[in-house]
C-alpha cells in the first residue's frame, strides 16, 4: 500500500473568490480571440467549470493559478477553433448589443475601435493571441511566457514589434479617415 500526504483542498469559497478576480480577464481574453460575445461567454463558463472539476489536479508548486487558468482557457479556445475548422478573429461586433446606448464620447471612440479591430484581424494568428493575452486579459509578459511556454523577453520583443506595426498602420488609417 502506497501512502502520500493528505492533499490540501481548496474550498468552494476560495474558488469563488478566485473566479471573481479573474472573470473579467478570462472573458476579455476569450472575446478578443473568438469575436463572438455569446461564444466568449460560453468559453469563459466552460473554463471555470473545468477549473472546478480539475481543481485537484492543480499543483501550485508547478504553476501559479493565473497561469493554470489561462492555459485552460487557451485550450478551450483552441479546441473550439478546431471544431469550427477555422480561426475566428477579434471583433467588436455585438460587444455592446445588450448594453444601453453608449455615451457620445464612446461613440466617437467606436471609430477607433473599428479601425483597430480590422488591423488586428490582419495580424498572424500567433500575434492575435499575444494581443488577446496582453491587452484583453491584461497579463504581464512573465505570465504570458508561462502560459505560452516561451521566453519572457521574447514575448516582450514580439509585443513591442506588434505595437510598432499596429501604430504605424493605425496612424495611417487615422490620417486617412480624418482626411476623408
Amino acid at each position: 500500500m502506497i501512502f502520500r500526504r493528505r492533499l490540501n483542498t481548496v474550498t468552494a469559497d476560495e474558488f469563488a473568490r478566485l473566479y471573481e478576480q479573474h472573470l473579467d480577464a478570462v472573458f476579455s481574453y476569450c472575446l478578443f480571440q473568438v469575436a463572438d460575445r455569446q461564444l466568449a461567454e460560453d468559453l469563459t463558463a466552460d473554463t471555470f467549470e473545468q477549473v472546478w472539476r480539475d481543481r485537484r489536479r492543480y499543483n501550485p508548486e508547478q504553476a501559479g493559478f493565473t497561469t493554470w487558468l489561462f492555459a485552460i482557457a487557451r485550450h478551450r479556445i483552441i479546441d473550439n477553433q478546431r471544431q469550427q475548422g477555422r480561426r475566428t478573429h477579434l471583433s467588436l461586433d455585438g460587444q455592446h448589443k445588450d448594453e444601453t446606448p453608449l455615451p457620445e464620447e464612446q461613440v466617437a471612440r467606436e471609430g477607433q475601435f473599428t479601425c483597430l479591430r480590422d488591423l488586428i484581424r490582419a495580424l498572424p494568428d500567433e500575434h492575435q493571441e499575444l494581443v488577446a493575452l496582453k491587452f484583453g486579459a491584461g497579463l504581464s509578459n512573465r505570465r504570458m511566457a508561462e502560459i505560452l511556454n516561451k521566453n519572457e523577453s521574447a514575448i516582450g520583443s514580439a509585443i513591442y514589434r506588434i505595437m510598432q506595426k499596429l501604430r504605424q498602420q493605425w496612424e495611417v488609417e487615422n490620417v486617412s479617415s480624418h482626411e476623408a
Partner: protein
Amino acid sequence: MSHHTKLESGGFRQQAVEEIVAELHLENDELVRVLVGLRPSPSQALRQRVRAITDMEQAKEMEKAGEPRRERILPLLPRLVLRASVVTAILLVAVFLLIAAVPSVRATFGRIMQQRFGLVLVEPVLETTSAIEPEANSEVLTEVKVIPPISLEEAQAQVPFTIPMPAILPEGFELWAARVGTGPHGESMDEDGNRIVTVPPIAVILHFKPDEDNQGRYHPEATLGLDIMDRIGLSGGYTAPAGSEQEVDVNGNSAVFVKGAWIRPDENKPPSPDNLIWDDAYDAAMLSWEANGLTYILSGSHLGLSQEDYIRIAESVR
C-alpha cells in the same frame, strides 16, 4: 503556508495602461489606451453563471456525499451493520443507548462481553430467543436518520474541540464529507429502579473516499471513516464478536483492532438476528483508541489495508 496563500492571495488584477507602457518601454501610450479600451465587461448573466458553478458543483458533491441515503443504507447494512462510518452519528449514538438499555436489543447482538473505546464485544454466537421478534430487530437496525454531510469547516464550527485529521491516507483518498451528530438524551432505569439519564457524546464522522482521479483503482465501495467522539470511556458502540479483537498500540495508547464485518447470509432478507453472521475474512476493519479526551474509531472497507496500515493512519491523526 495555506493553499489559499499559494493561490495568489494578493489577488489578480489586469494590467493597467501605465503598467503596459512601462513594461514594453513605450513612449506613446495612446494606442495602448485604445487597446485596453477594447476590454469588454462580462454581463451580469455571465457573472451569475460562473458564480453558480461552485454552488452547483458543491451541491452535487454534497448530494453524492449524502449517499447512501435511507433507501441505499438498508441494503448496505448487512455488510456495514454498526460498523460503517457512512451510518450516521445518530445511529451510533442510538446504538450506544439501545444496546446498553434495551434487553431485547442486547440479546440481539448476544451478551456483551466487553466494551472498549466505542466498541462492544459480544458473544460470537448471536442469541436468538423466542422473545425477540425479527421484525422488531429490523426496525431497530434500520432506525437510521441520515445527517446531511457538511464541509469540514462547517463541522468544525459545530463542535467544541479541534477536529483532528489523519495526515496519512490511502493514496488518492481525500476527505469527502463530514457529519456531526449527537443523540437524544436517554433515560432508563437500572435494576434497582433508579432513573439513569444518559447524555450522548458529540460525534464527528469524517468520510474519506478516492478522489476523481483514483476512483478506478479502488473497489466501488472502498471507504475509510474516522469517527471522533468527545469523551472517553464510552459504553456501547459498534459491535464485534468477542475474540475478534486484537490488542494493538497507537502512539503508545492501548487500542483495539478488529477485522471483519457482519454479513447477511441471505441477501434477500433484511438484517435480523437470524440473518447476521460475522465474517472475519471480509475486507473491513476497525481500529479504536482513546487519546486526549477523545475516542477514535477508524474504519475501512474494501481497501486491502493491513493492520499496520490502519495503525499508521491512526498514528498520523493530529
